[in-house]
């Protein structure tokens, strides 16, 4: 579900973010990677929080 959310949000943000198609692809991939990374890090932090 986190992956689905990250994919959908990065599609929208990437589509409207930059000027050239190449920059949009790169920006979308970057946003996707950031969502995934932050989600996984927060998930592991919260796993250890009682």
């Amino acid at each position, binding site marked *: 579900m986190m992956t689905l959310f990250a994919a959908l*949000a990065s599609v*929208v943000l990437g589509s409207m973010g930059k000027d050239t198609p190449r920059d949009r692809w790169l920006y979308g991939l970057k946003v996707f990677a950031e969502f995934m990374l932050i989600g996984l890090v927060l998930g592991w932090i919260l796993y250890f929080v009682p």
Partner: protein
Amino acid sequence: MVKTERLHAQDVEPTPGSAWLIGAAAWFVPGLGHLLLKRWGRAILMGSAVYVCFFAGMAMGGHMFDLNPSPGSSVLFQIPPMIGNLGTGALYIICWLLGVGFNDDPEQAARATYEYGYIFLIIAGLLNYLTMLDAFDIAAGRKS
């Protein structure tokens, strides 16, 4: 008005009326704003992202919000998520008219995906607000 402000005000072109119509269409039907602007790629990508998010939220058993508070709650807590839900435009209105997704059903609330579902429904609305703003900016000539 000082001179610099007056010069700046003269530089700003008024927003064309069609941009407001495009914005309204983009809000009402996700993807329609870009379709009207003949931005096929963006219309398919951004519109389908909103639809997938919305229907995924519904499939997860998500709940949508209106101004009828659940027992023991305040109407003030309903307004922020309702604004998010309202972003889906016609999808929200159709569900509201049909009463789909608005019931406080204990069985639905007990589903493991219930909370994910209502977040997905809110996210769908927020993504459509972004789509709407993008279509508006393109129609107003502020963006290519």
